[in-house]
């Protein structure tokens, strides 16, 4: 029977089917951060099972609140830090070398086509951009993943989202995914994998594909998968060249084994004409409440946030800087930019991008999740409005009583300059 990529990854990792419909998969990577992992660690200790299945397959980072903001977050960081040390987890990233999990782990080459990945974080779907099956899980699933290297899934059906055509000026991957979520609705992909295909996706960089895959969960999706190709290969080459005897052709052939077969089954197929997509943002409190920015003009904002695992990468900072150059933040608007990893931070310092942000009046923070989940570094006060490049606008996300409008970095930068939501094409 023809299989899609998720079918193939499931088949290759199937360890047990204790009951019909329950697939226990072996895991290639288990990722951990300091918010959801400490309770798993504490429970393992309590049960007398403080072990890890394979320290080389566990990746850990302190990223959500870093540096710690109070003694409680310091304790969480310490629990993770001590545990990583105790179990000889070498791929552990702490203050000075840490960054947002879904940005730093791919950057280190940890994710490969065909991998199975879990993390106690809903945006784990990001790593599907590499042709992997990557899913967010809760602490108990994480705990079992750490201990046994397995996770149970109901086999998700796949939705094919085919996006064709060239994106217009001022239109970015974020506009594409918000448009897709509007179409699918906030729960339209629940228990499904979204497979992104089409010429638009083919011509996207890995950074753009990660933006797409990152928000699969906002439509309820288990994972957002892109098929591994030359772009994936080039991104990963420095890490994998040795495994393929420096032969790119060989690697590409190997990647292709994961591609969905002709005639594979899909629960549904959605076709989107990329040439018709315009700059958009969310309005109200659900990620599927998406409207054209040109129709949302005049909405005043208090804060602009550029960062996160969705849009805190170098190309995102460049897109924002292109609009900010020579401009200043509007009066009464606060700007915060958080490059997602130290590598991105360094590159943005070297190429002058950070100067542009600073000259525009932005506060530059270290790589961290911070304001994205309303825990530190830019939490909103009740009644405040934020133009944000993050991925979630649910009630209270960036602070109790705050309103978050999700958009691309260019759109957020345009809003920063204008002091209100606007179409970024006004600046391009």
């Amino acid at each position, binding site marked *: 029977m023809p299989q899609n990529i998720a079918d193939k990854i499931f088949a290759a990792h199937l360890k047990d089917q204790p009951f019909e419909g329950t697939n226990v998969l072996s895991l290639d990577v288990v990722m951990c951060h300091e918010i959801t992992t400490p309770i798993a660690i504490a429970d393992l200790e309590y049960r007398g099972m403080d072990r890890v299945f394979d320290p080389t397959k566990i990746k850990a980072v302190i990223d959500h609140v870093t540096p710690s903001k109070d003694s409680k977050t310091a304790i969480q960081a310490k629990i993770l830090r001590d545990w990583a040390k105790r179990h000889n987890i070498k791929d552990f990233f702490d203050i000075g070398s840490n960054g947002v999990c879904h940005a730093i782990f791919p950057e280190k080459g940890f994710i490969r086509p065909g991998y199975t990945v879990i993390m106690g974080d809903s945006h*784990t779907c990001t790593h599907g951009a590499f042709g992997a099956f990557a899913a967010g899980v809760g602490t108990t699933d994480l705990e*079992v993943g750490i201990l046994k290297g397995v996770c149970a899934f109901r086999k998700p059906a796949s939705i094919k989202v085919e996006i064709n055509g060239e994106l217009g000026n001022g239109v970015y991957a974020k506009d594409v995914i918000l448009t897709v979520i509007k179409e699918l609705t906030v729960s339209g992909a629940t228990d499904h994998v979204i497979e992104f295909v089409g010429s638009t996706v083919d011509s996207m960089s890995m950074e753009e594909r990660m933006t797409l895959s990152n928000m699969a969960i906002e439509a309820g999706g288990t994972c957002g998968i892109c098929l591994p190709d030359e772009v994936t290969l080039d991104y990963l080459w420095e890490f994998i060249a040795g495994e393929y005897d420096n032969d790119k052709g060989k690697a590409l052939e190997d990647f292709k084994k994961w591609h969905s077969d002709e005639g594979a089954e899909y629960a549904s197929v959605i076709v989107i004409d990329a040439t018709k997509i315009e700059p958009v943002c969310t309005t109200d409190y659900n990620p599927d409440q998406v409207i054209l920015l040109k129709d949302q003009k005049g909405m005043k904002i208090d804060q602009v946030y550029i960062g996160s695992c969705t849009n805190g990468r170098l190309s995102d900072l460049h897109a924002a800087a292109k609009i900010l150059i020579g401009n200043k933040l509007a009066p009464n608007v606060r700007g915060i930019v958080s490059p997602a990893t130290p590598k991105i931070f360094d590159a943005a310092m070297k190429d002058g991008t950070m100067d542009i942000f600073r000259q525009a009046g932005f506060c530059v923070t270290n790589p961290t999740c911070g304001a994205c989940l309303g825990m530190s570094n830019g939490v909103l006060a009740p009644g405040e409005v934020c133009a944000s490049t993050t991925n979630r606008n649910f009630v209270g996300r960036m602070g109790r009583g705050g309103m978050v409008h999700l958009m691309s970095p260019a759109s957020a930068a345009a809003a920063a300059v204008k002091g209100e939501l606007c179409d970024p094409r006004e600046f391009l």
Partner: protein
Amino acid sequence: MKMFGGEVIFLDRENINTDEIIPARYLTEVKKEALKPYLLEDLELEGFDSNGEKLQRAKIVVSRKNFGCGSSREHAPWAFEVNDINIVIAESFARIFRQNMFNCGMMAIEMPKEKIDSLFALSKKGNVIADVNFSAKKITFKVAEDEVSESFELSEFDAALVEAEGWVGYADTRY
């Protein structure tokens, strides 16, 4: 197995997300018990009071579509668990929340819209008490003289997790 059944609280809105169930500011807690006072603290819903007696007495939640969407935090089921709420019944659930519930030996039960509607209708008559028969997979909702019985379905795996009080114990003996 956990205790199931008791007074029902009705949350009449779709897409109630995990930030509303337990706000991010409490994710710094490393003990489940510490979450107890904060359950549903940020949920703004007409007639709902997160400090009210109604929530304190509740043992079952009934809600609408896509319950538990958003962040993967298992703190959401835990916040229910430490408040002795071990069942949520809804028209549908977000995948991670649903799995987290069963992983903790709790139940996330899906019922079709008509049934959920009829339960909401029942709630207009007064306090609803539910009796859960796990082996028969049946829940009886009572209010004054009225009584409605609904059957529910669980996959074998979900039932096994409920019986084993969660996934850690199950997985450890098996893998």
